């Protein structure tokens, strides 16, 4: 599932730390970027690579909100529902997004393009309400703007 290139990148990441276990988060990121999410197989691979017990990889991975253990859409939308965004209408926007995508949080749209999740503050409160689509941030959202943004992610 994960190839030698991934192995190599994990090894390189480990060189930055005095103890290879520190490369666990980088490794989770690398594998997730590769696979879209982190299946058990990937975690076993990382455990083996870094000589960390599998249980620790699992325990650590499940601690972090951005590590996904279930398959996601091709594009992942993370929409903020913290206070600054809520004050400026995040909830109706989340409703809009749900209706528009026709799926619940964490589910994947039928065409496989999107899944969405609520997220705590993403540090875009100057552009609230805001959301991340993959690595891109989109602020000052309105229902129309959400529709337009989604068009840009085939």
């Amino acid at each position, binding site marked *: 599932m994960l190839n030698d290139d991934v192995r190599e990148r994990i090894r390189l990441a480990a060189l930055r730390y005095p103890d290879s276990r520190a490369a666990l988060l980088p490794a989770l990121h690398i594998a997730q970027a590769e696979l879209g999410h982190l299946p058990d197989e990937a975690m076993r691979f990382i455990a083996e690579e870094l000589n960390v017990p599998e249980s620790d990889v699992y325990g650590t991975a499940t601690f972090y*909100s951005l590590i996904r253990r*279930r398959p996601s859409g091709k594009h992942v939308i993370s929409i903020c529902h913290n206070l600054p965004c809520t004050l400026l209408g995040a909830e109706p926007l989340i409703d809009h997004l749900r209706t528009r995508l026709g799926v619940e949080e964490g589910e994947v749209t039928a065409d496989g393009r999107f899944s969405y999740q609520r997220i705590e503050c993403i*540090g875009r409160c100057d552009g609230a309400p805001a959301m991340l689509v993959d690595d891109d941030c989109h602020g000052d959202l309105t229902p129309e703007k959400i529709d337009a943004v989604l068009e840009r992610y085939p």
Partner: protein
Amino acid sequence: MLLKRVKIPRAADIDVAVAHGAYSAVAAAYDMRPLDVIDEVKRSGLRGRGGAGFPTGAKWGFAAMDPKRPKYLICNADEGEPGTFKDRIILEGDPHLLIEGMIIAAYAVGAERGYIYLRGEYPAAAELLDGAIAQAYGKGLLGNNILGKGVTFELSVHRGAGAYICGEETSLIESLEGKRGQPRLRPPFPANAGAWGKPTVVNNVETLANVPSIIALGSDAYSKVGAEGSPGTKIFCVSGAVNRPGAYELPLGTTLRELIEASAGGIRAGRRLKAIIPGGASTPMLTAAQVDVKMDFNSLLAAGSMLGSGAVIVMDDTACMVHAAAVLVRFFEHESCGKCTPCREGTGWLHQVYSRILKGGARGGDIELLLNICGKMKGKCFCPLGEGAVQPVLSSIRLFRDEYERCIGKNGCSGASCKGMTHGKNYQMTSAESRAISNDQNSNTP
């Protein structure tokens, strides 16, 4: 001082940054002895901008004095406090300012290895920082024998993965070591036994960004700006019901009114100021009547709140205070690490009660219940997260009890007073994660 290059186009490029003065303080610092650099920072009176306001020079001194080696310097770029985005502005707009600050800090404390712990929600900043670090290596500002002075400093970015608690410095260190981000016992303090058990300095992005100015200007000139006990400028992040939300660098001690009216353009169209959270989610709320408070460490403490991270969340008369508190409680419930009983169970319980109220299921005595739960938590949690979690509850009840009474008395909020903040049956109690867990549980059954 901090945002001067942010407005310059392409300031993330090292040549542009250098043309505008970046890294000039490194050579100046290298001409001083490390202890003198620490003394200079001590004299400047710089206090940490991450939330706790600990004197930076003193922290450096502890780590520098510890004979253990190696030592580590960590920049806390986890910026998770809701309403805070000042570090992002520096990271994306002027990464070389931070790197310069770190080079000087590392020299002062004797650290040859540094990490920037960057929150996972800042992917763009990660890319920019990686590029900026590579450029700095290219110019001989990082690595071995920096500027030919025989100093070594290696620096890299370590990306978090979505956990507010990892902003707390000991959790951050656990997370850096590849573990669950649960806070560690103190003592020992990171300055003596931090990352991998070695002396470690953890400083906020903005704190480190102040260092080049202190060295370049000298501590005397630096501390002329600011307020008594709070020298320097501060980047305030104004969000919520204002006309121009954004990050504004002002001298510490500027009044809240000035910040909201002059900088952020006042309250949005036709509305009135109702409440302010002055320093991020874990700082107690203030009412409109307190708008003349000075924004510095001591004045805010005196006003019953805290400077925190400088995240000013402004609420106008459309805001429902019960809902506002509920949203913050939901945040703390989601972010509690789960280690200690009061925070883990208390935030969960608070969250359940608020959810019920917002869904129209309020019961008589709920206000007392909320206060009671806060009482079980306050002063008893392992780390400040749990202590912060009770602040929105206690302060909103203290300042807006009538609103709670209306909400609860009518079996739920009518929604009349909080137009923008629809709630009711859609208020989310469960998240995708909790569903994921039930899937896991099923695999436990034979």
